[in-house]
C-alpha cells in the first residue's frame, strides 16, 4: 500500500528538531501571527524590566531632574539592610509553612478520596473549590472569622485561653496568613496529587499487596516515589505562590503588620514604591525579586523535564 510507505518519510520531512510540523510555505504570515504576543511582551515586560535595571543603578535628586550613576548604592541602602533581611526571613518562613501545610493536606485528601468507592467526584468538587476564590476575598472571609472580639474563630480561641488578637500579636498574624494560604493552596495540591494518583497503574499496588506489603509501607515505598515528579513540581509552585501570590491576603488581613511580621518581599516593595514613594530602592528591590523568580523558573523547568521517576 502506498499509504503505508508515506507516513515515515512524511514525518521525517515535517518534524524538524525543534518539533515543528512546518506544513505551510508562507513566509510573512507566521510573523504576523506572532506579532501581537511579541509586541505585548516587548512593551509590557521587556521595556519595564529595562527601566527597572536603569532605575536600580541611577540616583536622581529630589525633583527627578538631575540623574547620576549610583553603582550599587541603591542596593546598599535598600536591600543590604536588616529590615530587608527580615522581610526575606518572613517570606521564607511563610513559604515553608504554607507549602508544607498545603502539600500535606492536599496529599492526605487525594489519597483518602482515591480510596473511597462512591462519591469521588463530589469529594473532588468539595476539595477543589477554594482554589478559585480570589485571595483578597478569602482574606475578607477569614478576617471576619478572626476579628478580635467579634469573629466566631476569635471568640473560640479566646474561650480556649489563647488571648487572640492578631492585630497586636505577630505570631498570631503570621499563623492567620499562613492558614488562609493553606486553605486555598491545598486545593491546588489536591488537584495535582489526584491526577498523579490516577496515573499510577493498578498493577503496582497489586504487586505490592502480593508481596505482603502493608498499606503504609506500600504507600511510602511504591506510591510516593511514583509521585515524586508531581511532588517536586508542587513544591516549586507552592513556594512561588507563597512568595508572590499572598499579596491580596496580606493586604486585606494584616497590611504587613504588626511590626512587619507579615511583610513579605513583594509587600515591602509595594509599600516602598506606592506608599512611601521611595523610588530609589524600589528599582533595586524589583531587580532582586527578578533574580529570585529566575531561579524558580529554572527549577520549574527542571521539574517539567524530570519525567522519569524510578530507576
Amino acid at each position, binding site marked *: 500500500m502506498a499509504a503505508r510507505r508515506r507516513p515515515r518519510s*512524511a*514525518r521525517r520531512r515535517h518534524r*524538524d528538531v525543534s*518539533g*515543528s*510540523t512546518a*506544513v*505551510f*510555505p*508562507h513566509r510573512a*504570515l*507566521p510573523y504576523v*501571527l*506572532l506579532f*501581537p*504576543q*511579541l509586541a*505585548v*511582551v*516587548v512593551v*509590557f*515586560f*521587556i*521595556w*519595564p*524590566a529595562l*527601566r527597572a535595571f536603569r532605575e536600580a543603578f541611577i540616583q536622581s535628586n529630589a525633583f527627578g531632574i538631575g540623574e547620576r550613576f549610583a553603582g550599587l548604592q541603591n542596593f546598599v541602602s535598600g536591600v543590604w539592610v536588616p529590615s530587608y533581611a527580615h522581610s526575606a526571613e518572613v517570606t521564607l518562613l511563610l513559604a515553608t509553612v504554607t507549602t508544607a501545610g498545603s502539600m500535606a493536606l492536599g496529599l492526605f*485528601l487525594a489519597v483518602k*478520596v482515591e*480510596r*473511597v*468507592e462512591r462519591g469521588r467526584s463530589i*469529594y473532588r*468538587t*468539595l*476539595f*477543589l473549590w477554594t482554589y*478559585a*476564590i*480570589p*485571595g483578597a*476575598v*478569602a482574606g*475578607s472571609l*477569614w478576617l*471576619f*472569622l478572626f476579628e478580635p472580639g*467579634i469573629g*466566631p474563630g476569635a471568640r473560640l480561641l479566646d474561650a480556649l485561653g489563647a488571648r487572640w488578637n492578631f492585630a497586636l500579636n505577630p505570631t498570631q498574624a503570621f499563623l492567620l496568613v499562613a492558614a488562609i494560604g493553606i486553605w486555598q493552596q491545598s486545593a491546588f495540591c489536591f488537584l495535582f496529587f489526584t*491526577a498523579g494518583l490516577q496515573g499510577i497503574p493498578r498493577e503496582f499496588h497489586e504487586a505490592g499487596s502480593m508481596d505482603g506489603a502493608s498499606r503504609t509501607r506500600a504507600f511510602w515505598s511504591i506510591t510516593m516515589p511514583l509521585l515524586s515528579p508531581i511532588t517536586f513540581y508542587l513544591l516549586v509552585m507552592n513556594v512561588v505562590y507563597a512568595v508572590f501570590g499572598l*499579596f491580596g491576603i496580606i*493586604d*486585606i488581613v494584616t497590611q504587613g503588620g504588626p511590626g512587619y511580621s507579615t511583610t513579605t518581599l513583594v509587600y515591602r516593595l*509595594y509599600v516602598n514604591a*506606592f506608599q512611601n514613594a521611595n523610588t530609589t530602592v524600589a528599582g533595586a528591590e*524589583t531587580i532582586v*525579586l*527578578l533574580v529570585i*523568580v529566575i531561579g524558580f*523558573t529554572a527549577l520549574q523547568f527542571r521539574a517539567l523535564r524530570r519525567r522519569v521517576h524510578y530507576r
Partner: protein
Amino acid sequence: MTRAAGLPWIRHVLLILVAAAVALPLYLAVVVASRPAAALLDGVPFVPGNMLFANLGHVLREGLPDSPPVSRMLWNSLEMAMGISLGKILLSVPAAFAVVFFRVRGRMLAFWLIFVTLMLPVEVRFYPTYKVVAQLGLLNTLPGIVLPLIASATATFLFRQFFLTFPPELADAARVDGCGPLRYLVEVVLPLSKVNLAAIFVLEFIYGWNQYLWPLLTTTSPSESTVVMGMKEMISAAQSFSVPEWNLVMAVAIVALVPPVIVIVVMQRWFVKGLTGGIT
C-alpha cells in the same frame, strides 16, 4: 480488598468532616450575610436568617459608603476577566499556530521572548510596568489593566503542545485540497481544540477575575473599581459604622467569589482533561 472492608464508613465520615471544615468560612459568611448587623454583636448564630436577599440586593444596588454599587463593580470585574482570558487566547493561539505549522526563522528568539513572561509575574514587575502604563496614558482604562496581563507563556506552550499532536497528514491533506493556513486554523484546528480552549479559558478567567494588586495600582477612579480590589475599601467603610456592617461585607464577598467558583465547578472535568490530553 477484605482488609479494607470495615473501613469505608470511617473514611467517609473523616472526609465529610474535613469538607465541612473547609466550607465553614463560606457557610458562616452566608449566615452573617443573612442577618442584620446588630444581630452579630453577641456572637454569630449557627443558622442563616432571612435577610440574605435583602442584603445582597442592598450591596448590589447601593454598595457601601464611598464605593459604587457592587453591581457596577461586578461588571468591571467581568470586563477585566473576559478581557484577560479572551485576550490571552487571542494572542497565544496564533502564536502557537505559527511556530508549529510554519518554518519560522528566529523561532528560538520568539520562544525566549514568550518564556520571559513566566519569569515576570505581575507581582515582580508591577512597579516599572506601572510607570510604562502611566507614560502611555493608559491608567484608569481597560487596556491599561488588561494589556500588561495578556501575554501568556502557559497558554502558548499548552496550545503548542496540543498542536504538535495533530498528524502532519491532516494539514497536508488540507493543503492539497487548496485550504489556506488561516482557513485551516479556523475550520480544522479550532474546532478540534474546543476542550483545550475551554480549559485555558477557565484557568485564565479565574486568573483575571482574581487580580488584586494590578487593578489596585492602575485604577484610581472608584467607578472603575473591580469587586475584588474594592474589598479593602468596603471593609474599612463597613467598620466605620458604630455597629460594623460585617453582614454587608460578607454579602459582597459572596458575590465576588461566586463567579470563579461556579466556573471551576461547572467546567472541572474539561479543565483537567484539557490541560493534560492530546488530540483524540
